[in-house]
């Protein structure tokens, strides 16, 4: 076989590093972002090579998908604002300033230190693999990653959804009183119209499947949420008026719902157990409910994050400004 495992990995690593340098040094910002998204997809392949399928899905959906969309939305907004200032595409000024020299020195030192540290510590394979795998059956799910995320270290995941929620609140706080970009005037191409009609129900279906299959196969709330987020972004770009502003309580309930369900699930089991200590029998069902609620919330949150960056967040007029 021409490409045995090792040489493929070497090739992929070189490709990754080359793409990274290309993205960072590209003169035109738009080109950098596109290369960045390509880089994200290649990293998803790397996850698969290192037997981390869950992460491959997450990286592809969130790492390159949503993040790429955020970057493009922000770039588009900046360039549209600049069009007034007529300074064309954003060139990357080659900066020869002294700070560059310092940066090179510091980076070399730190990366060297890291590489040596990794090499010297690599042989200790102390990890929690056997500990975690032996107690999978008590966790109520089969997929080890979902077990760790939603049972062993559920507290981390809870706080992490809190972080996501904070990001949304932050975007609302930052976009306070910003006027919303009006998409309607753009001539909406028919192709985009039909594409969106076909795509969105499919995406919702696959997201549902991903949540369900997360029980034993790679999948789960975050990957499904990312898919929903992607669908939201496409809907927004196709000019569909999505009522995303916090003026409407239903929007707030969707955004905060996942976090609240997770918190209440952890609380309700607390009669004589610790926080988030699901009873063995019903662990599976509780985890599923939490995952469903979180998927919806994450999807909505990611859509709002995109609309925040791309200035699609309507600030309804009846709300008097600060």
């Amino acid at each position, binding site marked *: 076989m021409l490409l045995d495992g090792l040489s493929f990995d070497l090739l992929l690593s070189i490709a990754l590093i080359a793409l990274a340098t290309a993205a960072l040094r590209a003169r035109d910002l738009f080109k950098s972002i596109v290369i960045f998204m390509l880089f994200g997809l290649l990293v998803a392949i790397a996850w698969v090579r290192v037997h981390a399928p869950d992460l491959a899905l997450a990286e592809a959906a969130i790492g390159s998908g949503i993040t790429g969309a955020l970057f493009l939305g922000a770039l588009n907004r900046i360039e549209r604002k600049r069009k007034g200032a007529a300074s064309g595409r954003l060139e990357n000024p080659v900066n020869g300033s002294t700070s560059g020299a310092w940066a090179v020195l510091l980076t070399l030192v730190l990366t060297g230190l890291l590489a040596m540290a990794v090499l010297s*510590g690599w042989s*200790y394979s102390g990890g929690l693999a056997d500990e975690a795998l032996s107690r999978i059956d008590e966790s109520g799910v089969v997929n080890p990653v979902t077990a760790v995320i939603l049972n062993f270290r559920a507290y981390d995941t809870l706080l992490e959804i809190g972080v996501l929620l904070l990001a949304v609140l*932050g975007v609302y706080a930052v976009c306070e009183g910003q006027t919303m970009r009006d998409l309607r005037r753009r001539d909406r191409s028919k192709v985009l119209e039909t594409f969106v009609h076909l795509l969105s129900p499919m995406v919702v279906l696959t997201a549902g499947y991903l949540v369900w299959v997360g029980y034993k196969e790679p999948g789960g709330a975050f990957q499904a949420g990312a898919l929903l987020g992607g669908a939201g972004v496409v809907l927004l770009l196709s000019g569909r008026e999505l009522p995303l502003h916090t003026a409407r309580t239903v929007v707030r309930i969707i955004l905060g719902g996942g976090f609240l369900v997770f918190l209440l699930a952890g609380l309700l089991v607390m009669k004589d157990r*610790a926080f988030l200590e699901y009873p063995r029998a019903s662990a599976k069902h509780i985890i599923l409910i939490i995952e469903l609620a979180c998927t919806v919330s994450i999807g909505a949150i990611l859509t709002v994050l995109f609309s925040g960056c791309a200035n699609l967040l309507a600030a309804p007029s009846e709300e008097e400004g600060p």
Partner: protein
Amino acid sequence: MTQSSILIWPVLWPLVLGIVVFLFRGRTALWLSLAAAVGTALTSFNVCRAVHQSSTLVHEVGGWGAPLGIVLRADGLAAVMLGLSGLVGLVISVYSLTYFKSGSRKEQLFWPIWLLLWGGLNGLFISGDIFNLYVTLELVSLGAIPLIALAGTRDAIKASLRYLLLALLGSMSYLFGVGLLYMRFGVLDLMMLGNTITPDLTVYAAIAFMIGGLIIKAALFPMHFWLPPAHSSAPAPVSAALSGLVVTASFYMVARLWFYAFPALELAKLGQLIGLLGCGAILWGGWQAIRQERLKMLVAYSTVSQIGYLFLVFPLYNKAIEGSGIAWSGSILFAVSHAIAKSCAFLAAGIFIKVYGHDRISELRGAGRQLPMVTFAFALAGVNLMGLPPSGGFVGKWMLLKAAFVTGQWGYGVVMVCGGLLAFCYIFRVLEQFMTTPDENAPNLKSPAVMTYSVLVLAVTAVSLGFFTPVLLGILGVDSPVSLVSFAPEVLLP
């Protein structure tokens, strides 16, 4: 080690009510926020009381054991910090009830973000797992930044952008450290890490990255430039929370790692380096504070200076010298009294801005007569920052000075005293303006009642902290990592 469920409440209460407040609007949201603030404070004090009476509280989240699951621990240090965040957080919440224009969008957004941040802070203080510390730290940082941006002014946006860029760098470097430690020892729990850690290259690299990241977040001297613009352009209650709690939390994490996860290692050289940075912070922060024109910038640079004091504990304490344990209790006491005094100073500055419309020091002439109570509170906070008796700052500085003498490191003693003198200059420069008689046509101004009394409560606590030292040390003594001749005041040398 008593397994108890009261430990999780200081985290859950603000998080749950934070979301519920987000769902409501108008008057009900305000009442809910007040209930959230009071509930969080009470639960924190409850944990303090429990730790003081029995011993370290433990809460295994999800019921899994130490290596696999996350274990929350509240020992003496965590209990003191929880008490601090309860007190300061409650006063900030009461203050902000009347600070924001009622019904404005800012007020609606302030409460959920602030409650989530507060929950994250409490989670950070009781967390016993290094990755969980990372997530709570992120929760706190990403909560703090939008609050700064909430001020809406141009330099608030710029300051929060700069703060976020640096905070990201800090947390990524911390994450690298966690990755290295996990790769090397395969365990994330602090206590287990402390027992299994052995000195080798990976561990030293991990320490360098973790402490480096936290130093950026704690704005220690070379990495302090983001703090003054951020803390001064934010709304008053936010800058009080930032200077009081968020910065102290980063210091707390460095202390937690240093004394609990890496006690077995020989970190004298790193300690001396941090000591040097601390001295730089004390002197540079003090010098810059004197030259500031705006009151909030002055108070922000005073934070940069006072943080230097906190980081002196690492060079001052060394296991070999018997009496040097006093540096540990001194720095924690100093942290507590600084947090209270600093948030009081910022809240008072907020009142000045609300009443006068600006905070240019040269034009705050005569505030002593027009707003006597607020000036009195600011003066009391100043007494604490200068480390004059009977404030907690005095006792903390006294202990650090004693440790400097016991360990024979005179330099730190001299720097501390110089820092005190610099503090005299910049505090009395402000007080002078307040004491001068205002020009005749100055209108007599009315200071908002609720805000004034909340500031007064903080000021009086800060000053009378000196007398609460036995209580604080009693709590701090529970499972303290430092071998001190017994803390309990009853067993005292004649």
